[in-house]
């Protein structure tokens, strides 16, 4: 075999490997986004129940409750983009956070078993969402790195791959949830 032929074969193999790794990275991002989405859905499913249990008591927080319901309705619309989902998630986290803080002002709510159970379920889902977000951000970082690094960047440009956005992780999320404070026992 002549030398140019060998060089050609090696180059072709390298291109195939690079192409496959790019596709794998892109699919990993999509895969993990699906996991994030599942958890987000789980959280949206808890919302009607939550709103129903607390609205009787929460007179002053009606606007947040309305916002949460609106956000849920928006998230349930078909065909919304991933970026939109991410934005809705950020708003939802903030709104739910303020509801949970508000619950502290209502002794009837704090003693309510149903609310406690909901708080607990929300906590669990929040922890799952946080984990899924972190996994997603890592997958996106790997993907974005491949898009910028030599030599995969050349191939990525040819494949029209676009860099993706990571979830903005709230500072408060980096702290662990303190159960004692949450349940105020």
């Amino acid at each position, binding site marked *: 075999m002549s030398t140019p032929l060998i060089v050609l074969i090696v180059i072709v193999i390298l291109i195939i490997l690079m192409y496959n790794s790019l596709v794998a990275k892109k699919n990993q991002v999509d895969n993990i986004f699906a996991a994030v989405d599942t958890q987000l859905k789980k959280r949206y499913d808890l919302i009607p129940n939550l709103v129903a249990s607390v609205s009787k008591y929460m007179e002053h927080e009606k606007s947040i409750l309305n916002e949460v319901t609106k956000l849920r309705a928006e998230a349930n619309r078909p065909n919304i983009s991933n970026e939109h989902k991410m934005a809705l998630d950020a708003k939802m986290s903030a709104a739910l956070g303020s509801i949970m803080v508000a619950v502290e002002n209502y002794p009837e709510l704090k003693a309510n078993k149903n609310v406690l159970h909901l708080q607990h379920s929300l906590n669990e889902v929040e922890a799952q969402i946080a*984990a899924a977000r972190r996994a997603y951000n890592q997958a996106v970082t790997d993907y974005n790195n491949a898009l910028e690094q030599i030599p995969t960047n050349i191939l990525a440009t040819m494949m029209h791959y676009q860099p993706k956005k990571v979830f903005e992780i709230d500072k408060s999320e980096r702290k*662990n949830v303190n159960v004692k404070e949450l349940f105020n026992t």
Partner: protein
Amino acid sequence: MKSISELTDFYYKTLYPVLQELEKEREAVKSRVIKLGISYLIIAAFIGVVILRYSNGEIDMFLFFCFAAFTLGAILYKYLVKGYKSTFKEKIIAPLIKELDENLEYLPKRHIDETYFTRSRLFTSRPDRVSGNDYIHGKIDGVPIQLSDFHAEKRHQDSKNNTSWTTMFQGLFIVSEFNKNFKGQTVVLPDRAQSTFGDLVGNWLQSNNFSRSELVKMDNPEFEKEFVVYSTDQVEARYILTHTLMQKLLHYQKQSKHPLYASFVGGNIYLAIAYNKDLFEASVFHSLLKYKIAMEYLKTLHLAVGVVKELNLNQKLWSKI
């Protein structure tokens, strides 16, 4: 569970009479070991010289004798200190463990079952021989825990049919219940590749480790430097290893000052600390009254049993309630 200072108090106050008695026994055993040791050495040296003289320069016979004399000496030494060592465990370690937490049971001669070791997935191959001692089990704050000294070895056979043994792991092995529900397997190992070969090559080696599941890159640089994480599920690995748990594992490893292995399999957390020596053994050459020696026993014991509090395994806030 008692704190380390409470434990130190107990050691020097309540156990003091026992310690003094034990100290007398130690002195006696030590002088016996030294006297017998010297006589043994003199006799052995004499026989050795005789053998060397009359074997016409054949070194094989002499070497064989040296080997036999050394083995016999070791057996003799073990026999001499055996009584002291078991008294130490019975009169010092056992009360210490009871004082630490009364829900704990101590069985000095038993060790953690081999199945736990294999089930932990911390080591990819099965050991051919296991041994251990100082089995402690019970409940701390309602969380079941068991731990022991554990030594796992692998057998090697060369072409001449000579068997040799290498150590896979020696140190503390701890099994406890984890406070979150999970389905997959997540393994945290000391990061050897990244610290030996640097980030680029090390990372590549880690992601191509075929005996392990998927590599999980963690978002805590300090943790990522010390450990490498493999898991069957990228999201679940992060659900288990929160920022807080990563910090706590780092802290735990710093306290133990030895390589730390951790895994999360089947609802349990498995921890292995490679001390590379048999722990909780008394030496006749060191006084138990010395602060440094005493603190080593107390600290190791407190660290091992303290894992439940240290890693917040007693906070069942998640789906396990």
